[in-house]
């Protein structure tokens, strides 16, 4: 198969990485297998479930659909990168408060998608939250508590801003 190696530079969670990747290698493979960011989950490899959502320059993308070579010189945030000084990010905190986690497999993707939403819209309504999360499948929760968590997180983040 594609044996040609290409050198890329990426920034993941604030740290720079220089890597050699194959042309067909996905961002998901690189994050999980080369860099050890196992919080990025593989659910379908087809961009249909959102488990592998990461932030690319602040926007949510399915890491399984991005080739590693496409993210050269780009800034990536995974779930490991959003807490600071061992303190949970307010969205992570809200997911705990709202009991929005069951098996936890969709959770990293949900939280990162929610972060992208709340970074650009601090007061989303129910419909906007559902729309934002519509690419992230969850089989355990029926979404109710996840949507609650995003609302709680929005309030928390707004209070912190004030």
């Amino acid at each position, binding site marked *: 198969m594609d044996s040609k190696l290409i050198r890329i530079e990426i920034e993941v969670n604030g740290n720079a990485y220089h890597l050699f990747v194959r042309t067909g290698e996905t961002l998901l493979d690189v994050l999980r297998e080369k860099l050890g960011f196992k919080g990025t989950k593989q*659910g379908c*490899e087809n961009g249909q479930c959102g488990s592998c959502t990461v932030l690319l320059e602040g926007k949510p993308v399915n890491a399984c659909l991005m080739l590693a070579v496409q993210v050269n010189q780009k800034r990536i945030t995974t779930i490991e990168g959003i807490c600071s000084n061992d303190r949970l990010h307010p969205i992570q905190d809200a997911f705990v408060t709202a009991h929005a986690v069951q098996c936890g497999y*969709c959770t990293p993707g949900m939280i990162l998608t929610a972060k992208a939403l709340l970074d650009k819209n601090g007061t989303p309504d129910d419909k906007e939250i559902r729309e934002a999360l519509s690419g992230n499948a969850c089989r355990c929760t029926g979404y109710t508590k996840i949507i609650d968590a995003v609302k709680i997180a929005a309030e928390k983040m707004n209070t912190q801003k004030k």
Partner: protein
Amino acid sequence: MKIPGVLGVLLPEDVPDTRFNCSGNPPSPLLVKDERILTDHPLYAGDRIAAVVAETPDACYEAIEKINVEYEIFAPVFTVKDALAKNAVSIHPNLAKDNIVKKINVEQGDIKKGFEKSDAVFEDSFHTPTVQHAAMETTSCICYYTLEGKLTIWSTSQTPFQERRILSELLHIKENNIRIIKPVMGGGFGSRQQLHSQHVGALLSKQVHRPVKMINSREEDMYASVVRHESDIYLKIGVTKDGRLQAFHARVYFNTGPYSSHGPVVAAAASRKMQYLVPHYLYEGRTVYTNAPVAGAMRGYGNPQLTFAREVMFNRIAKKLNMDPVHFRLINHVRVGDSFPPGNVPVMSCAVEECVRGAEKIKYTIDRKENGAVRDNSQIVEAWGVAFGCHTSGPSSKEGMSSCIILANDDGSVRLFTGFADIGQGSETTLSQVAAEELGIELSDIAVTAADTQNTPYDTGTFASSQMYVSGNAVLRAAGNLKDNLKQALIKKYKVASDNITFEKGTVTISFENSEKIMTFKECVQKLAFGLKETVLIGNASFKAKESPPPFAVCWAKVTLDNQANTAEVKHIIEAVDVGTAINPEIVAGQVEGGMGMGFGYAMMEKVEIDKRALKPISSDLLHYKLPMSMDMPKTHVYIAKGYEPTGPFGAKSVGELSTIPVAPAIANAISNALGLKINSLPLSEIIVPSGYRSG
């Protein structure tokens, strides 16, 4: 021809040709051994023919491409109807000439007499589709077979101890040399209540002397792992004119695919979920071989299918008799002291009336908020539908068993060792709460080691909503045993009689002649355990279930139909549950909401579709298989009744499977009420287009 990176290949002739049954149930004559590790006679699109192990997935795919398989193609049968046709090919001629693997007949009274005594008789046929669990993590395992003949497996497993037993028989390895570990797991819903690829993984590892990792693609999970049984149901119900059930006759055909797996047990389990009193009861369950995907355990285990047909039929009966649908159900419902037909095991807790009241209160609030009960004009029609459901706490065959060891640490914190598998439902949390409550310590004082066949004691497994009731009773008893042992140590240390020591909510009181000594559980442990002190404190217990108390649910769904667009939106689902004591109400609510999500998908849009031309399932990914997404989900509302089950740990029953059971019929009844149409099959997207947020 050598492909770089390929390490080994297994063909059918390389593996033991032993027939086995993959189901993670305890051994039973209902589990027919009809499956092989690899087969040269594949019976469906997901069958295992050969296995390749390589250093990279790409090398595996390349090698698989190079394997030439010559097929002799027979005419396949995919449906129950085709499999039972006169000239249908026998899929396992030696086991079932007529393709019926097992027949389960359950009877009470005299069904013929029952219908004669009835004032009105209703009969009809129903169909429910094949659906898939679609757990977010796909099925996977890592198998490592060492040169010393020790096998270690990390796998998505709901039943590690059953899987160990089957592997031991299949591969001739003693159970003490097989270690199965269930790591943190991304859901299950029944799909891992069985052996999946561990046998192949173990044999590949044995061949190459390295650990072998196997991860299903989503496509493989969709139709080459396991699905819920498609069913064809015939139902005939007789009632008196005042609405009392007289006779209930169900004949259910379960499409098990080419291997029987759980099939006959599912057929048997479905007979035990009739929560209404009926003097004359006849249940006939038939498990049928086809060439469709293999069916197995999935949340509800035969119950969603028959409950759908029954509750839809009850809607029609109530309408015909001009009775309120809830009243009709309530006058026939079991109460404490009654037994489900055909049994003589009295129900010891039932808070169905409170469920009815709780759900109706929520319904009233919704209607008030949405300006009036329901809209009904020429274009937009709104309607509510109701259904009841029940399930079991632990296998209804009463095979549930669990055990637990609790080890006290120096500082009085403890560790639980138990075989149960938390697959995302939160059982490690709730069962820690049980131990904390019994010992009078904080939840943070408890750590759990679970689901590791080398380091934890036996548990039947995570199925039949067992954890809270069966495993919970084992944890409770182990904590009690730890207290007993602590007491013995206190007797020895303080030289007092047994009666002089009392435990009350974590406080230990030792009465001396003229004084009292009051300590916490932790202080006692610190005084007694380890070092130069008296003892090491361990508690242990096993629990064999004698009952499987049914939890109950009442579910309402509100739909809006647009007659012009022929669309239906499910706006609200309310579910009220009697789960006994809710040990952790947030986890219970989460289970109910998740069950509503799965029930909503079952009702509206989920179906594994087999293409007649491709001769295989085409629902191979999450676009073709319509999983409910956040935009689809109706608003959910949960009410938890204050039930109490005397045989449960602190009064608890189960919730996991229960919550999904009544949802599809409630939605079907709502749509039927709005459309004025009879509904006989799922998913409802086949008669009406689901709408909601997703469509704008």
